[in-house]
């Protein structure tokens, strides 16, 4: 029989080629190029010429107080937001996994924060946290939690609170989805067997749910940590990193470095540092999530 055209394997590679091309051009090449650039000076306030400077960019990072404070805030932001969104997301997922009337409506509502564009909703949060006319102040005052309006976005501590509040609101949705997947993969029979044995809700949760959810939980934490570390949209629109750089994250510092200070080489080195920080989490995720592949 005449062998027509390509073998299965060759055909397969051909099919994958377009996707690979995209990935190489938009992901692999930029990552590599960024590493390369970080060893060069490329500063538009100094003429914009490419010049090799070795480790100088990285040495400058050590003296860049603005970077370190942004790193500190980013870490605080991540460490606070991820656990809280996890707990909320877990509760939401547990509820949504229970059978009750109106469950679909509840699941649909939980999806709403996920569906809304972060940047657009950040404008909405600016309005909610508005010092003079915002509903957040009004709400708190009606319940006598505060006695006069707070300028949420004008002072560092309250701005940090606002940013965390707005972020957790959105990311709870993500966690919900990640954990719901895990919950749904737990076979009902296990719960039924436990019910027959007369196990209480807490026991079921501790002995069945949590252990079987473990890899989902780990994956959720790893994934969300990477995303939280790179947060940009929400904070850039909500506070711009202010006041007093109190809500400035590493990614905002990078953005300013590149597009305001026009220092692309240094910006690339900052990206390298960010990448290195994220790498262990990414590798951990890859190892667990893509084990079978």
């Amino acid at each position, binding site marked *: 029989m005449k062998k027509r055209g390509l073998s299965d394997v060759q055909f397969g590679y051909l099919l994958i080629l377009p996707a690979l091309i995209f990935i190489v051009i938009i992901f692999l090449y930029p990552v590599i*190029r960024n590493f390369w650039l970080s060893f060069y000076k490329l500063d538009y306030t100094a003429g914009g010429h490419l010049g090799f400077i070795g480790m100088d960019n990285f040495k400058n990072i050590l003296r860049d107080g603005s970077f370190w404070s942004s790193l500190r805030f980013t870490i605080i932001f991540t460490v606070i937001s991820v656990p809280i969104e996890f707990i909320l997301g877990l509760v939401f997922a547990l509820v949504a996994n229970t059978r009750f009337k109106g469950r679909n409506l509840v699941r649909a509502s939980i999806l709403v924060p996920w569906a809304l564009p972060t940047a657009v909703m950040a404008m909405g949060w600016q309005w909610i946290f508005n010092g003079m006319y915002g509903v957040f102040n009004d709400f708190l005052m009606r319940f006598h939690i505060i006695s006069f309006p707070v300028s949420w976005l004008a002072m560092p501590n309250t701005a940090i609170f606002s940013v965390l509040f707005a972020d957790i609101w959105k990311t709870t949705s993500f966690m919900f989805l990640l954990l719901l997947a895990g919950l749904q993969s737990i076979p009902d029979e296990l719960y039924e067997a436990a019910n027959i044995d007369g196990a209480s809700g807490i026991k079921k949760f501790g002995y069945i749910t949590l252990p079987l959810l473990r890899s989902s939980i780990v994956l959720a934490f790893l994934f969300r940590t990477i995303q939280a570390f790179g947060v940009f949209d929400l904070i850039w629109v909500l506070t711009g990193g202010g006041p007093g750089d109190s809500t400035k994250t590493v990614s905002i510092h990078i953005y300013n470095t590149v597009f305001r200070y026009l220092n692309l080489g240094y910006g690339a080195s900052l990206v390298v540092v960010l990448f290195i920080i994220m790498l262990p989490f990414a590798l951990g995720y890859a190892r667990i999530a893509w084990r079978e592949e």
Partner: protein
Amino acid sequence: MHIKRFISLFLFWLLVAFIVGYSLAPFLWQIITSFKPSNELSSIPVTYWPKHFTFSHYKELFQGTRNFPRYIINSVIVGLSTTILCIFIGSLSAYAFARLQLPQRGLLLRIILSASLFPAIILIVPLYEMVSRFGLANNYLALIIPYTTLNLPFTIWVLTSFFRQIPTELEDAAKVDGVGRLGLLFTIFFPLSAPAMATTAILVFISSWNEFLLALTFMSNDTARTVPVGIAMLGGRSSVYEIPWGSITAAMVLTTIPLVLVVLIFQQRIVEGLTQGAVKG
């Protein structure tokens, strides 16, 4: 015994109410705000239900020098192109991964998936260089190509696992009929996975609609802006320093209500699709 059940039931419903309120309240507030006339916006204390309903903010969005309709058109064009491109290329790859035994399959898949792990800020400097070198600033392609790339991992993952579930007997039957490999793709896989592809398409479209960083960076021309950037940049009309909350919330509502409706209607499928993609990660 009954009291205990009653209390736990009550607490449960309280929790449900909290969840729904938590999820919807901030957005509902934007909707309410968008219908309040400007003077009511600055009333103290806050009015929770508009005293007077007005559509003026919505009308204002389409007036004169505003580019608001433009933003929507741009987002739609970028979103549709990205979705079509992504689903098409993604399903080609998914077919190959699902059915054709490729050596190095694991490695290739991992390479593709790695693109979904890192936030876009990692890529911004070189991507900007490329956009600048090829003169693509303010060009739809500057967004379509990266968006497609960033959505391919998820798309390929979901479609691959879906394709794998399609029974091989169907393919065998088709092969006997003389249908070629590519023909298999079009006559069997596509139709059978239409629901999964549709769901994935919705997710890609939403992801493209909501993207901010790249849209902010590559589209500096106001007529080329997409919705999220356009709304974030809405400047003051009445005074140089005032922010027009009425217009902003109206813009928000107008551009997100379709998203929310789609999500509400396809909620079941979307959760399935996302949890599918999330099952192994």
